[in-house]
């Protein structure tokens, strides 16, 4: 298999680390090699948070700018901020309004390098299910509907069941599925 580079972005407190863990664990569960790079410390206090996930036989944990196949953004501005990471033909999934995303200034560039953009109001989904802290799972569910990259919907779902703390398992799966439905429409 070819190496796949993910960049996950958002704000401190949005659960970027958990989302990265779910993808990484799913990859490992099916016998793939992974490397992750995380943000800890000062930036976690509400700043921009990015984590990188590389699946395949690589050595460095950081994704090089211009080489991410998949960018998952939990916040619209953090999606734009990380556009330079995207490789030609990459995919961008964002928690953002369906119609106005991406803003017009970035469209020519994204079109030029062949980026497909998909967005869903993931926060609204999470809030509606009374789990405002689970925007990450809604976006992940949405992403899983497009069968992009090495990890499937079923594999992610299994990992969520595996690693969620008991009291959050049910709601986590519910939010994930709602996101998935949003992507399957």
């Amino acid at each position: 298999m070819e190496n796949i580079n993910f960049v996950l972005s958002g704000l401190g407190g949005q659960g970027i680390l958990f989302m990265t863990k779910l993808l990484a664990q799913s990859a490992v569960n099916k016998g793939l090699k992974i490397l992750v790079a995380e943000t800890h410390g000062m930036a976690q206090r509400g700043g921009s948070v990015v984590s990188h996930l590389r699946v395949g036989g690589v050595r460095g944990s950081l994704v090089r700018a211009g080489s991410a196949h998949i960018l998952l953004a939990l916040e619209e501005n953090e999606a734009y901020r990380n556009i330079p990471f995207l490789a030609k033909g990459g995919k961008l999934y964002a928690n953002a309004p369906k119609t106005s995303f991406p803003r017009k200034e970035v469209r020519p560039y994204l079109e030029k390098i062949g980026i497909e953009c998909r967005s869903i109001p993931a926060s609204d989904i999470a809030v509606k299910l009374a789990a405002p802290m689970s925007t990450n799972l809604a976006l992940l569910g949405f992403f899983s509907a497009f069968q992009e990259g090495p990890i499937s919907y079923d594999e992610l779902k299994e990992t969520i069941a595996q690693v969620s703390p008991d009291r959050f398992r049910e709601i986590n799966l519910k939010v994930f599925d709602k996101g998935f439905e949003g992507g399957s429409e």
Partner: protein
Amino acid sequence: MKQKEIFLGNGAIALGLLEAGCQVVTSYPGTPSSEILPEVVRLIKSAGLNTYVEWSTNEKVAFDNAFAAAVSGKRAACCMKQVGLNVAADSLMSAAYIGTTGGFVIISCDDPGPHSSQTEQDTRLMARFAKVPVLDPSSPEEARQMVGVAFDLSEEFQVPVIVRPAIRVCHARENLTWGGLKNNDQKASFEKNPGRWAATPRFRFILHGELNRKLKEIGRRFEKLDPFNFHDLKSGEKYPLGILAGGVPYSVVRDILSDEDRKDIPVLKMCAPHPFPEGLAKEFMSACEKVLVIEETDTVIEYFLRDREKVLGRFSGHIPSEGELVPEVIYGLINKTLEELQMKGLSSEGHESAIELVKGLELPIRKPTLCPGCPHRASFFAIRKARPKAIFTSDIGCYTLGINLGGVDTCLDMGAGITMASGFYHSFAHDQVEQPIVATIGDSTFYHSGPAGLLNAVYNDSRFILVILDNQTTAMTGMQPTPGLGIRADGTKGKTIPLERVVAGCGVDFIETVDPYDLKAMVKLIKKAAEYTSDPAGGVAVIIARHPCVIAYREEAIPQKKEIVVTEDCVECNFCHDWFECPALYKDPDLERTAVDQTLCAQCGVCLEICPKGAIIEA
């Protein structure tokens, strides 16, 4: 039984320590090293080991405790961040001469960037300064292996060995196979030998000579320290360009060369750079016309390479001297060098235009802020309100973010909130000027390096208010316990040493405690403290602002939740944003006034006191 598990780099280091039979692990938390000790604790619990662990009060204390264990023949390690090693530098310099009997490994984690530190200093330089061997891992798995090698070297040569993982190792995650951890039953024994363990200067001269001989020998060992030091030259072949790289940049260089299928560029990996493997470097240099040296963050390898004509690096301006060498930077500088040497370039992907594009979007700058409900926000607000003209000296921790609220004017290093306050006091008093000064320091930082400065301030009759921001945890680095809590690293009970007792022991007579959520009471108390500091019979006044961190104590920190709304009385004066900066209060462009983001709001209710127009009310 072996199992597979995704480990944090710091977890891989913890695993390496225990696999090597390390019996004593000490640490003081600091990004990016903080998770090593908690991971050790997790592993010893799961494997039922008897390893001794402690959160020490500071890095020097951690160093000395582990050192003594090693002198008694046990395998011991201390873990800290790079600037923590500065605190332990006094011990390190001396320990290099004296040496150990058991294995002694110092894990000092570097922070190129810097992401969460005061400096980008390179621990490898510290190793050279102290004359001890240093290993520089390029991945979590390699860090794990290196810890074992470091112990073997340390024991064989009776010398401390440093392992310096950089942040991209510490905070990487990798899938590792592990299992079968066992206790090391090496017993403590101490053979008296004052000539060595308490050496006087005359003996130090002799020990220095011995250390130099050890280093020569270890340097020879490093010539062949596969897989940490090796090159891939084909014998007899000559190359226009070779790359010499160590640590994390080595991994990046390897990825780039393999992505680009560049077999024409040989690489010398040097992850054990000191004592310098002179012969290995010479061999590589003689096969290459030019050698690009890529190391983080300073010039350790480059410094040792004598043939300046051939070397392209920081001295020649080919490598930036500050900032992290992230993959795109390394990619760019390899490409530039290829161009300069008129060799075939890399297949540049041109994300540069995207960087320009993003710059033009004027995206909101997301600076880190104190959490919603953070008690420090309340403290800073009260301090500024009560002493608006004061100089605010501060310290290292979450509360350094008080800078956003105008409550932090200085931040030098651990403990300097207090020592700079006394320095400012004497500087102004020298001119007969009464300058108000309010110092802030966190509870953990106070235990780390507060008392010596406070004692000095009292002894020398400085006058200032010290507010100890006691949130009952070491918040910034991930909620480690403090001596004030009496909980130890493994969760067992230790003796509680209240701040009040330590402060009193430093000779302070004005010690009062307040809950900063009660803004009015805190403002009043600060004013009272100010009177005490200007009273001829007064002195340093200490206020302990005690309220638990809302992240560490989710349930208890906010006993009475209050739902907050902002009414139409808001005139958009910006006061709450400039002075209070709660992330849950935002300017709503549609309403044309401030509003509350209910998903962020912690319902602490502190903001009810702050709006000059009374527009922030309970729903």
